[in-house]
């Protein structure tokens, strides 16, 4: 066990320019986003910190609710990860306290309670996203990324990424001059991805946000739907815009 921890302590050193898969990670040190992690389990905390540091985040760790609330009140974090079951305090209490103090730092709630009701409670308390333990680290990073780069409320009637263009009024899509026929669900999926271009979007995120379902049947549902959308957006002779990150999710990027 000691060896294990030691290995990860060494992992805290920033790893320059070697971030895997997600090239969409935040850029140079000057704008290193700060994440406050409130989590009582040391081992889990170490893994999360190692992963986030590797991807270019600055991580501050609080092991108890009281400590976490103090640091959150300082308001230096760009995003927070809060475990629900903390010694001495419920994670939701921290979030409620922050929201009452008008601190709007986006919060990702972590919980071993996976029930839909618990999830609803977490989001209602002011959490911005909810992730059930155990989770894939990729999922966690993707969600933190999504929270940090959450698109603001926009009144635009069109969304553009490279040659791809969505007209939100006429519900029509075009790539260059070629118009694309989309089913309503495909349109929503594409809009969601275009608003979050260059971000890794996991299957669970898409399923929750685009389909609005809280359960994920044991199927490759998202993959199949995504495959269809991809065939419409990226013709064989065109440069691909929708990228499948193996085992992790999807990214939409403007062609280079």
């Amino acid at each position, binding site marked *: 066990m000691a060896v294990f921890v030691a290995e990860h302590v060494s992992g805290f050193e920033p790893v320059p320019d070697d971030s895997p898969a997600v090239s969409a990670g935040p850029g140079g040190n000057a704008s290193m986003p700060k994440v406050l992690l409130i989590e009582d389990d040391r081992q889990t905390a170490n893994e999360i910190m190692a992963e986030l540091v590797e991807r270019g985040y600055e991580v501050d760790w609080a092991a108890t609710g009281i400590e976490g609330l103090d640091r959150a009140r300082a308001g230096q974090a760009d995003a927070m990860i809060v475990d629900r079951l903390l010694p001495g305090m419920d994670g939701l209490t921290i979030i409620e306290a922050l929201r009452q103090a008008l601190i709007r730092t986006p919060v990702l709630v972590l919980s071993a309670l*996976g*029930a*839909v*009701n618990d999830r609803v409670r977490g989001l209602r308390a002011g959490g911005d996203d909810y992730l*059930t333990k*155990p989770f894939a680290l990729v999922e966690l990073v993707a969600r933190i990324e999504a929270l940090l780069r959450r698109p603001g409320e926009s009144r635009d009637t069109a969304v553009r990424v490279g040659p791809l263009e969505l007209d939100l009024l006429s519900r029509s899509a075009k790539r260059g001059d070629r118009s694309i026929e989309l*089913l309503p*669900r495909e349109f929503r999926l594409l809009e969601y991805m275009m608003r979050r271009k260059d971000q890794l979007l996991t299957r669970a995120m898409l399923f929750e946000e685009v*389909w609005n*379902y*809280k*359960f994920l*049947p*044991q*199927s*490759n*549902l998202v993959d*199949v*739907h995504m*495959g*269809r959308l991809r065939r419409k957006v990226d013709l064989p002779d065109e440069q691909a815009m929708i990228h499948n990150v193996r*085992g992790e999710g999807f990214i939409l990027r403007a062609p280079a």
Partner: protein
Amino acid sequence: MFAAKALFCVRLPEFTRSTTFRWTLVASGAFTLCILLMFGFVLAQAYWYMAVDVDGLNAGVAESIATKDGLEARIGRLEEYLRVDPHNVKLGGLFDAAGQRIAGNIESLPPELSPGAGPQLVSLVKIGVPSQERRSARAEARRLPDGSMLVVARLDYEITWIVRSLERALALGLIPALCLGLGAGAFLSIRAQRRVEEVNRKIKRIVAGDLRERLPTQGTQDAFDKLAALVNGMLDEIEALVRSIAGVGDDIAHDLRSPLTRVRVGLERARQNARTLDDLRGAVDRSIVGLDQSLSIITALLRITEIEHSRRLAGFGRVELADVVREVGDLYEPIAEDKHVRLAVAARENAAVNGDRDLLLEAIANLVDNAVKFTPEGGRVEVSLHQTDNEAIVRVCDTGPGIAPAERDLVGRRFYRGDKSRCAEGLGLGLSLVNAIVKLHGFRFNISGGPGCVAEIAGPTRQRAVA
């Protein structure tokens, strides 16, 4: 000392503390009181009746003597009256104005006697009787015109005797009745006590963990039997639940062990045999898939528990089933197409039910998910919505291998999984979930055989409110 102690230690038998016995005591007491009251009434009535009778007799005799003219005639009449006295109860006397006896068998004028005051109870001494004691009698006294006093009396021991015999009859009847009552009470309470003790014994065994034990019934349909039957019904339910939980434990253990074993073996082998980093990565990837599988089983179980424990009606509202069916169709159409399975959706009818939209969608999605999964290439899955007079039916038919009739009922049972589905990857606990959702709604779920498998969810339609 010891004797005193022993006396204190004497305890009444167990049954005397039973409720039945106490009630018997109360009932016996009330019964005794009733009898006493009744006898008292009878006695009072008898006494009063006989006293009136005797008084009437005395008054008649006194009248017949008083109306005679002359002392001699009166004495003659009195003596004639006294002469015939087989029961030795007649008394009579004539006294002069000074109170000296002139004739009759009364020794002296009783001091308490007041003439002309009607019938009264006096005590007097009869002449010619050896004991010479004062005896109680009912008397009639009259002062005659010549100043003399006429007394006609009758000993009341007849009345006393009759009262005594009535009292004796009462005692003779009451004591056995009381004993009988107490005996019946003791018998009943001992019997009840025995049943209670037997029930207690059985309950102790059940509490100790023997869930197969049942309370004894006697088939008499009395309160005891009904209670026992009720408790037995409860025990049946508990036993079934405990068994199903035990079964769940086995199922979970089985379902979790299989992927975890694969993970463990895979990691172990990779540790020894992997030559390259890619070998190792491959093994780790397979392990993660295995772990995810185990986790999804836990998630599904928790979800089922969540649904089973959620309060009904909390998120219930009007659900248009046609929308839900179409949505599920849209969701699975690409998947079916990829698998070269035709997915046909027929939801022309518009039926609304009372329910939780998300849950109903989850249930129907699970049925379609299963159907698509088990239908071989080139097959067909049909999702349709039907409406009968008062029921909306969502039917999912497929051309897959179907479910054997013997297994159809079992499928509805919690956590049961057919052997065929066990082999298919990733079924999870789909049908159990459907079952839980349908139960929460109070709908019907049944599986029948068509060419493949026909699964139906049926629920009462909700009428549009009439404005």
